[in-house]
């Protein structure tokens, strides 16, 4: 099994800052995107079960290296990082283009991506990458079961009413969710070994991508204003005994026409 995991380094939720140019500050304090860690874990388990190797693919600035090192410590064999100053401010469209170009240069049976990222919140990049590469796209995976002998993969996709079982030929791209299972902690041995694993860096030139087609100049979205959200008035605190408290809740909800 050759697996590539699309791994994004994101600011820790709740600590995000903005740079002067309305961009998310990615200069420090980045960690692996939550959903990406779930697919990484699923990928590591697949490699343990079927053999092969897992490689991570990240588009992100140099501070992303810490998140990549953690993935290596968890068990990824090596990593590819697409780094280029021109990438700053890329939107989902450009990200899809760059990741597709990078994946095209890699050999894999399965490409795994998180269902969405905590910073971009779009949840569209996986589908776009698969479409660009002509790969079968299986999304919102709660379980990933490849059949290497048959060259196929089955995915349990969460649906509004339960789940669907999807099947496609490999290579395929699977976007996964938290239901794949908790990511492992890197072991100390893994951490020590990770320091000697290779992180290959690719530039836009390496990928044959015009820098003008990505980053801030090419973005489809322009921020006009950024303001703190309207504050709630502050909570009415109720410390009464249960009966009295319930009376007050009912009055409160009735006044707001909620019951």
């Amino acid at each position, binding site marked *: 099994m050759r697996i590539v995991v699309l791994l994004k380094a994101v600011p820790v939720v709740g600590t995000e800052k903005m740079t002067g140019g309305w961009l998310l500050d990615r200069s420090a304090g980045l960690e692996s995107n939550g959903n990406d860690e779930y697919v990484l874990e699923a990928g590591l388990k697949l490699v343990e079960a079927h053999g092969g190797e897992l490689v991570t693919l990240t588009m992100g600035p140099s501070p992303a290296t810490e998140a990549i090192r953690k993935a290596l410590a968890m068990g990824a064999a090596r990593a590819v990082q697409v780094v280029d100053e021109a990438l700053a401010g890329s939107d989902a469209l450009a990200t899809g283009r760059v990741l597709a170009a990078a994946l095209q240069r890699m050999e894999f049976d399965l490409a795994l991506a998180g269902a969405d990222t905590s910073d971009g919140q779009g949840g569209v990049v996986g589908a776009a990458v698969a479409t660009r590469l002509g790969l079968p796209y299986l999304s919102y995976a709660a379980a990933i079961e490849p059949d290497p002998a048959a060259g196929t993969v089955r995915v349990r996709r969460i649906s509004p009413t339960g789940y669907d079982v999807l099947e496609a030929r490999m290579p395929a791209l699977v976007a996964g969710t938290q239901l794949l299972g908790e990511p492992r902690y890197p072991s100390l041995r893994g951490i020590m070994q990770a320091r000697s694993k290779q992180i290959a860096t690719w530039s836009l030139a390496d990928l044959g991508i015009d820098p003008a087609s990505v980053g801030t100049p090419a973005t489809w979205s322009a921020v006009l204003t950024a303001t703190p959200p309207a504050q709630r008035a502050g909570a009415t605190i109720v410390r009464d005994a249960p009966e009295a408290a319930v009376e007050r809740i009912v009055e409160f909800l009735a006044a707001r026409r909620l*019951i």
Partner: protein
Amino acid sequence: MAGAIWAVCDMVDGLPTRHGRELATLTWALGRAASRPTASVLVGPGASAAADAIASHGPDVLAVDADPGERPIAAVTAERVAALIRERQPAYVLLGTSDDGRDTAGILQALLEWGALVNVSAVRWGDDGPVAEVSVFGGRLVTESRLTQDHGLIIVRPSAVAAEAAERPGGVERIDPAPGADLAPVRVVDRVGEASAAVSIEEATVIVAGGRGVGGPEGFGVVRDLADALGGAVGATRAVVDSGWIGYAHQIGQTGKSVKPQLYVAAGISGAIQHKVGMQTSGTIVAINKDPDAPIAEFADMMVVGDLFEILPRLTAAVRARRA
């Protein structure tokens, strides 16, 4: 005439979702503000039959009775919508943030090379194009953004507007466009229904959610009872989903669903940032927690300090008594 504004509306079991009807209403409002034509696109089995329901929200309906057969509906939708967009050249296409909506949008991005405004919580018509409101940085900032081109996708969260009937319904056009792409095949081998996923938290106008404070799977009994009494859905934090007390379909927050009900009752939920990002835009938030210093006190409208097992059953009874 300037390009049209379209909504691509999800259906579940042959019926448009509340989210889909909201998108139709939103599109109608934008079309009126911009003096542009509008349309709602329905793709899937039963689209024609559902067309009148979605037409009531104002925009004309493009109903595509495509049978997905063994294919995922998002792929089938994206292929048809791509063909329609190429043929009729609308300027702006709204999609929902549902799983199918985002999958459709991602495929369209690649097929059309269209950019998108994503995770949008509200849209208004600006000087010469749509302006989208997005909650970012875990809810600490709200941005307003516009598209840099005269066309693009806008991916909208539930409850951006309330679905409502227009003064006159739109017309209905049944069409069968040839697929505008040849996507790699994916086969749906099986569709499995699970009782636990029956009530969609994204569709609910009232959510009663439980956190660690409910103590265990059986603790969700009082949460469910209140949700039933209020006609709402049951939500949960990641911690309790991880503990196996309730299914992932109920999870609200960073790696679960984002919701915006009119009423959110948080029982035994501390209000950690990972949960907050999924529910802080709810209309009214009532928190019930033993700990008066729980972070949720900072963004609730009412903070009831007490034991949820004493308060929820009484509240359920009071709500039922009022309804009776």
